[in-house]
Each structure stands twice: as structure tokens, then as C-alpha cells.
């Protein structure tokens, strides 16, 4: 391990023009493996052969933090399964590919998994804009797809081989709107990223909140990857709502949270949709006291899982999304077990049935007629002393 | 001060020479004019002396020192060569005063100031407009400014590329006067290229004729002027 890492360094130094490498001493902390505290349990040695499934995650790009967290969920699930009886007596292997956070790279990665790896199921991705085309591609190839992180309602119609272990925005939007109404806010201003997730959540929250008799003063969509979002935030501020509702992705969230603080938006309540997406990356001072909703990772079985996570990686969940990835792997494994083969169509047929009795670490995952998770425990939380705590 | 060209071959692109195997002697404190038809390589020859043709072979000796391979700005500083190009011969966005100051960039501050004053004295036309941008000057004034700029460093050798190009007949006369005065007053060796062969040869001591990149003739200016072939071809004589 050490040898290999050194070789990588040497390779980097050999590349001409890499003057900046002088700074590599204070370099990257993005290597997931290196932060591990205790090793994952070894696989059961009686397992013979392999069953391979794929995963396409945003390991680089805007959502790299989430991708890394999803990868952890997968690692934990695989370790748990292989520590026990494996799948059909074989060892479960998950090939993880990087989607680079873009749709075409996600599809290319899926193509590689399908054509080289011959996998019968692919887990992924995180952004709806990537998950939707990827699932459509998988559907065309007759491969099962399981979405562990996207919430656009368009995922309902990607095909009968496609599933989600996370509740979609129609579920989340209703929950959010009800929470806002319950807190007594009469008007809200919404900011979301300009992508399919953002447009979806704005639509579903707005519709549900207005149905509750509330008013949406303005809704803004921001372009990801900018260095400054003051324009967008000033628009929210100028519309003078009772509360601001924001949902961002980590990378932009840090800048947005900083500017929310600087521009004094924190004088009013700031409600965060999927808090764990952006709060962990933000300057703690800028999000202190922030309220918001998030998916609830801690179900009955969840606490043991949370402990295992903490033990293995030496820190608390960095997002909520590891759990859905964990559930995606475990549910698929149970589906394969129940189908008795790794054939895509057989797995797809078995999954809804299996899901009825499956107790996930994120709670029950009952798949509806569209293969989508029909129940989703959410939680209202707030940031206290830099930690997200349930309210 | 004298210039010796021996076997000079020069061009802008490697392997494509514009002038070939030129041997020319430019005597000290004399005015020597190069004439020849368009495209005969007159300017290229001149530019090889100041070091502005990228590819030059042969020997160029200025005042006893080989300068081939020496960069243009060092030829100017160390070998006291000054050059006035034909077009783009002033710094347009800079004022007249600034143009002169750039010409004397290598002088000390006090010396530079003194030279600027001297130049403005010598050319009262320029003095009146010293704070004006050079690009707003007329063609003749520009040519004068270019000359003054070149003289800032008190050169011993002055190279002029078609100083009369584009000037009105009256301006042309004063230009040639200025060239001759410069030589007479400062004892400068002048090597110039001219389209206007008759007038330039009249103020010159020696002449050089280039044809298609090769040396056709050289000798005293009067002799060239009198040569019937040259006269018929380049001097517009009947």
C-alpha cells in the first residue's frame, strides 16, 4: 500500500511542469481510504466465486463529498454481506466508477460497467441530472438501476428495471412545506441549484406550500460553480419573506452560506432542505442556528449502522447519503438471493417483493408500483455548536 | 564608423534569402545610398546591418567590430548604430518628448534631458508639439521625429530606410537637407536606402545598386548618377 502510494507521487513528480507539486505536502485530503480508523471486517473465507454489481458515483466534481460518502455506505454494506453468507454463496463485489458529476461521464462509466464488467445491476448516481439519463441508458441495456441519492420525480418514468431507495421530491416537498407551515411562516423565498433536482424541489415545495395557504415571494435558481451568489441572495432578501428556504450542493453551499451570513439573511429563519448536503462544508459560524429538514438515517437498525460508520471512518456521517447507498446494495443483494440468480429481469421482478419486508438502515424501503420508495422518514433538525441535531 | 559587409546573405525565413552574397563598403562620415527597384532587397540589406532580419549569414563589421549575432538593441547601445525604419518609425501613442526619451533610454537622466532639449532646439517644428502624441503628426514631422529619436544616443552610424517615402516634394527637400546637415554637423556615417534615387544620390558620396537581391554596382554617387544603364532603369532619365 505504502509502496504504491509512493509510486504515485513519483509519477506525479515525473510529469514536467508540475511545479506546483512543491505544495503537495499540504495537498489533497480527498482520498477516502486514508481516513479510515479501523479496518472493515474480512470476507467470509468460505465464499466461492463472485457476484458483481456496479456503482456510478460522483467521486469528483461538485458533489465529491457526497460521492465519497455513498462509497462508504457501499463499502460497509459489502463488508457486512461478505462477512456473512455473501450472495448465493458467492462474494459480492461492487465495481465503483466515477461519474465526475456529469451526465455523459456517468453514462460512459455505466457503459464500461455493463460492457466490460458485465454487471446486471448498477447503483447510482447522486444528481438527478445524471441519474435520469443513466437509468434510461441502463433500461435500454436491460440492466437494473438503483438510485440511492436523486430525488427528481422524473425518475418515476425511467422504466420497469429502475428503482430508488430514496424518496423522491414529491414526498420531500410535501414534508418540507408542512414543516414550514407548522413553524408559522406565511411567506418564503426559495433558492435552489439550476438543475433537475433544484427545479423539482422548487416546484414541489412551492405547490405544497401554496396549497397550505402560504405565499412564495420569489424562487431563484443559481448556476453551480460560481464564485459569488450575492445577486441571487439579494433577490431573496429584497422579496422580504418570513423565512428563506435554501437547498444547495456542498461545493456551492459553502460560498452561499458564507454570503447568507455576510448579507445578514440569517436575521430571519433560514430553512435548509437536505441540511447535510451543505452544512458540513460550511463555516460553522455561518450556519449556526440553521434549521432544516433532512432524511432520517437513524432508523431502528440505523443506530448500529451509525456506530459502525463512526468506528470505521472515525467521524460521524458526512452526509445522509451513505445510508441509501448501503440500503441499495443490501436490497439488491436480497433481491439477487431471492431471485436465485443475477439475471436482471429476475432481480427486477424480485425487488418489490423483497422490499416489503426489508428493514433498511434508513427505515422501511417499500417500493411502489413505479419502483420508487414510498415511505421516507424525514427529520427536522437544527445546527447547534456546529453539529446537526434533530429538533 | 565605417561599415563592411562581406558575403552577406539575409532573409526572413530560414533558407529563403532576400539578398545574397553582398559585399559593400560604407566609408566613415560619408553618405552612402542604396538604390534599386522594388523588391530588390534594399531594406532587407539595411535591416541586416541593424540586426532585424532573423536570418543573416556573412560578416558585418561596424567600426572594426564584427556585429553579426549581436542583438539589435546591443548594436544600438554598444556599437552606436542608429536606425530609422521606413514605416512605423515612431511610437504612435507616446508624445514627441516621450519618443525622444525612449530613444535616449540608455543615457543617464541628466544626459537624456540635455539631449532632448538639444533635439527640440534643432527641430523647432517638434518643440512646438512636444506634448502631442506622435501618431497625430504629419508624415514629414514623423520622419523628423524618427530622425531625432535615432540621434538621441549620438550615434556614429545612421541607417535610414527610405526617409523620403510618402513625403511631399517640399518635405522631401527638407528631409534630405536634414540628413546632410546631420552628417555635416555631427560627422555621422550615413547609410540609406532610397526609392527616390536622383535626389538621394545628389546628397550622397557613394552609391550602391541592388538588383534582385544581388549587388549590381557600387561607386561614387556621381559616377552612379552618370551611368547610362542605371539612369535608364532607375533614375527616370530619358
Amino acid at each position, binding site marked *: *500500500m505504502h509502496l*504504491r*502510494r509512493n*509510486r*504515485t507521487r513519483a*509519477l506525479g513528480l515525473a*510529469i*514536467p*511542469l508540475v511545479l506546483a507539486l512543491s505544495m503537495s505536502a499540504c495537498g*489533497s485530503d*480527498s*482520498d*477516502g*481510504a486514508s481516513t479510515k480508523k479501523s479496518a472493515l471486517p474480512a470476507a467470509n473465507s468460505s465464499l466461492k466465486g463472485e457476484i458483481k454489481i456496479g456503482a456510478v458515483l460522483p*467521486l*469528483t*466534481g461538485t458533489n*465529491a463529498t457526497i*460521492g465519497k460518502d455513498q462509497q462508504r455506505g457501499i463499502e460497509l454494506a459489502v463488508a457486512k454481506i461478505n462477512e456473512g453468507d455473501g450472495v448465493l454463496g458467492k462474494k459480492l463485489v461492487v465495481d465503483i466508477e*466515477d461519474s*465526475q458529476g*456529469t*451526465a*455523459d461521464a456517468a*453514462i*460512459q*462509466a455505466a*457503459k*464500461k460497467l*455493463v*460492457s*466490460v464488467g458485465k454487471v446486471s445491476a448498477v447503483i447510482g448516481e447522486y444528481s*438527478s*441530472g445524471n441519474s*435520469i*439519463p443513466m437509468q*434510461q*441508458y441502463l433500461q*435500454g441495456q*436491460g440492466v437494473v438501476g438503483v438510485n440511492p441519492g436523486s430525488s*427528481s420525480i*422524473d425518475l418515476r418514468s425511467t422504466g420497469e428495471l429502475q428503482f430508488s431507495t430514496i424518496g423522491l421530491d414529491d414526498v420531500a416537498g410535501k414534508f418540507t412545506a408542512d414543516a414550514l407551515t407548522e413553524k408559522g411562516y406565511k411567506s418564503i423565498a426559495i433558492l435552489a*441549484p*439550476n*438543475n*433537475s433536482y*433544484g*427545479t423539482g424541489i422548487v416546484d414541489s415545495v412551492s405547490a405544497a406550500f401554496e396549497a397550505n395557504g402560504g405565499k412564495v415571494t420569489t424562487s431563484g435558481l443559481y*448556476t453551480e460553480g460560481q464564485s459569488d451568489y450575492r445577486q441571487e441572495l439579494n433577490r431573496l432578501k429584497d422579496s422580504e419573506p418570513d423565512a428563506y428556504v435554501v437547498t444547495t450542493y456542498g461545493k456551492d453551499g459553502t460560498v452561499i452560506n458564507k454570503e447568507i451570513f455576510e448579507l445578514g439573511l440569517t436575521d430571519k429563519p433560514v430553512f435548509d432542505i437536505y441540511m447535510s448536503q451543505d452544512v458540513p462544508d460550511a463555516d460553522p459560524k455561518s450556519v449556526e442556528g440553521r434549521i432544516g429538514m433532512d432524511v432520517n438515517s437513524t432508523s431502528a437498525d440505523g443506530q448500529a449502522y451509525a456506530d459502525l460508520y463512526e468506528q470505521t471512518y472515525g467521524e460521524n456521517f458526512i452526509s445522509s447519503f451513505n445510508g441509501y447507498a448501503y440500503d441499495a446494495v443490501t436490497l439488491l443483494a436480497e433481491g439477487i438471493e431471492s431471485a436465485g440468480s443475477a439475471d436482471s429481469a429476475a432481480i427486477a421482478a424480485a425487488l418489490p417483493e423483497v422490499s416489503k419486508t426489508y428493514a433498511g438502515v434508513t427505515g422501511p424501503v417499500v417500493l411502489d408500483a413505479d419502483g420508487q420508495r414510498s415511505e421516507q422518514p424525514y427529520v427536522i433538525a437544527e445546527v447547534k455548536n456546529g453539529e446537526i441535531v434533530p429538533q | 564608423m565605417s561599415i563592411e559587409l562581406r558575403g552577406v546573405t539575409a532573409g*526572413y*525565413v*530560414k533558407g529563403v534569402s532576400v539578398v545574397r552574397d553582398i559585399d559593400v563598403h560604407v566609408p566613415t562620415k560619408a553618405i552612402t545610398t542604396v538604390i534599386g527597384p522594388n523588391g530588390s532587397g534594399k531594406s532587407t540589406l539595411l535591416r541586416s546591418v541593424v540586426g532585424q532580419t*532573423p536570418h543573416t549569414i556573412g560578416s558585418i563589421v561596424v567600426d572594426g567590430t564584427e556585429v553579426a549575432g549581436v542583438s539589435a538593441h546591443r548594436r544600438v547601445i554598444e556599437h552606436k548604430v542608429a536606425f530609422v525604419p521606413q514605416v512605423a518609425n515612431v511610437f504612435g501613442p507616446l508624445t514627441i518628448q516621450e519618443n525622444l526619451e525612449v530613444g535616449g533610454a540608455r543615457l543617464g537622466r541628466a544626459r537624456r534631458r540635455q539631449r532632448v532639449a538639444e533635439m527640440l532646439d534643432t527641430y523647432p517644428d517638434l518643440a512646438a508639439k512636444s506634448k502631442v502624441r506622435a501618431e497625430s503628426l504629419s508624415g514629414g514631422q514623423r520622419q523628423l521625429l524618427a530622425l531625432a529619436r535615432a540621434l538621441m544616443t549620438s550615434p556614429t552610424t545612421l541607417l535610414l530606410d527610405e526617409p523620403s517615402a510618402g513625403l511631399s516634394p517640399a518635405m522631401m527637400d527638407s528631409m534630405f537637407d536634414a540628413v546632410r546637415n546631420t552628417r555635416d554637423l555631427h560627422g555621422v556615417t550615413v547609410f540609406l536606402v532610397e526609392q527616390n534615387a536622383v535626389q538621394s544620390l545628389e546628397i550622397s558620396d557613394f552609391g550602391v545598386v541592388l538588383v534582385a537581391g544581388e549587388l549590381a554596382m557600387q561607386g561614387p554617387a556621381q559616377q552612379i548618377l552618370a551611368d547610362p544603364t542605371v539612369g535608364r532603369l532607375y533614375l527616370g532619365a530619358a
Partner: protein
Amino acid sequence: MVDYLLGVGILAAVYAINALSLNLQVGVTGLLNFGQVAFVGIGAYSVAILDSHGVHWAVGFAVGGIIAGVAGALVGRLGRTLSSDYWAIATLALAELVRLVALNQDGFTGGAQGLSAVAGLWTNLSGTARDTATFATIAALLVVTYVVARRVRNGQYGRVLVLIRENPDLAASLRHDVVSAKARVMALSAVMASVCGGFYAMYISFIGPSQLLPFATFLVFTMVVVGGLGNTTGAVVGALLITVLYDGTRFVRDWIDISADQAAGIRILVIGVVLLGFLLVRTQGLVPEKVRTAHARR
């Protein structure tokens, strides 16, 4: 594995068409188009948008070709008074404008989400057979493009284009209509690029604004430079090599133990180093253009 190789082959052929188009502009005519990806996008979006309204792909190709051709001609005319570096920046800005529209006009283009489930080719086949048929189709398309590009390059018109690159003043003084010649070559190249874009959208079943990022253009620039600016065969060779290199680096993480972030960095770094290396050490590329060596430029 066969399927994956076919996939790489299809991708390489798509890129080769793109490179042939860019080579006509940059290599032959000296028009530094940094916005090539916009033409590709026009083709891809035309096919995808019309497909989502149930229109046959052939119509999509035709519409995309016409729009791209007109756009190309207009951009070519924009070059009238501009020096090459200004024009390059202008094309980059135009391409970014196209991307911005694609991103923000969500009713039309699907916005950030793009348009997915674009109908593929050979839907009556499946598996390897389908990939093989798709590969055969794009290969045939590549051959046609190659023949056209070669004829243009080696014909009278091609000589005018090279003259425009080497010496625009001379070209104008020889009474060549420089503006019109530029506009025509831009139009032709734009049509080629739009066809390749339409095909790509069908093959990958998706088009979105993230595919219109400038890096897509720069990748094709690398292909053209590596192959040899101005050489038609070179463009194809460069496209093949760079596709294999770029797609191959996807496997880097399978061989050495690095983080995904670093792997992504290396993939981009490889392209940058190859491009710069060729420009510095072997400017003429692998398959040099003949005229270039004879008249070295200043």
C-alpha cells in the same frame, strides 16, 4: 470486452468526424474556432428536441445541419475584420452563449437536466449486434466525411483556403473572396460537426449542457494538433489516438492506487501535456501537412 471496444471505436469515429471538421477550420484555413462544441451541440440538440416531439431522427439531422450551417457561415463572416486571436475568443464566447441558453431555456432544451432517452440507432437489434451495426454506421459516415474533407483540402478550393491561412493579403489581392471562402468552409465544417453531434446524442441517448463545456472543444484541438494541423489523415489518426488515450485513462484507477480526484486530474493533465508537448516539440504533428514544411511560417 468486444462491446467495450466497439464503444471506444464508436466514440473514436465520432471524434474523428469532429476532428476532420475542426481541421478544415483550424488546420487548413487557420480559423481558430474555440467554439466548435457549439456546432456539435446544435446537431445533438436538434436531433434530441425533435425526437422528444416524436419527429424522425433523419429530420433532426437535416434541421441540425441547416441551423449549424447557417450559424457557421455567420460566424465565418464575423471573422471579416478580426485577427485570429480575437476571433478565437469570440467563438468561445458564442459557444458559451449557446451552452447558457441550453442551460436556462428548460422548456425547450430540458435545462440543466438535458434531454435523455433520445432514440438510438438500430433499435430493432440488441447487444453486440446493435453495437456492431452502430459502429458500421458511424464508420461509414466517417469515410464519407473523410472523402469530402480530403477533396476539399486537395482541390482548388483547398488551395485557396491554405493561401488564406498563409497570406490573407495575397489571397485578397489575387481576387479571391476571402470572406466568402471563410464563410463556406465554416458552414461545411459546422454541418459535419452537427452530424457528429446528432449521432453522438443518439448513441449515448442523452444531450445536456454539461457536454457543451469548452473542454470538449479543447479535446478535439488536441486531436487535430497531434494528428498534424492541416492534414486530413492526421485528423483521423489524432482522433483515434487521443480517444484511446483519454478513454484509456479511465482505467488508470484500476492500475494504480489514487483517489478519484487525482485520477480525474491526471486525465485532464495528460491531454494538456500531450497538446503542449506537440506544440513545443512537434508542431507539425504526427502526419505533417506537406505545404507547411515547404513554407515555414514566421
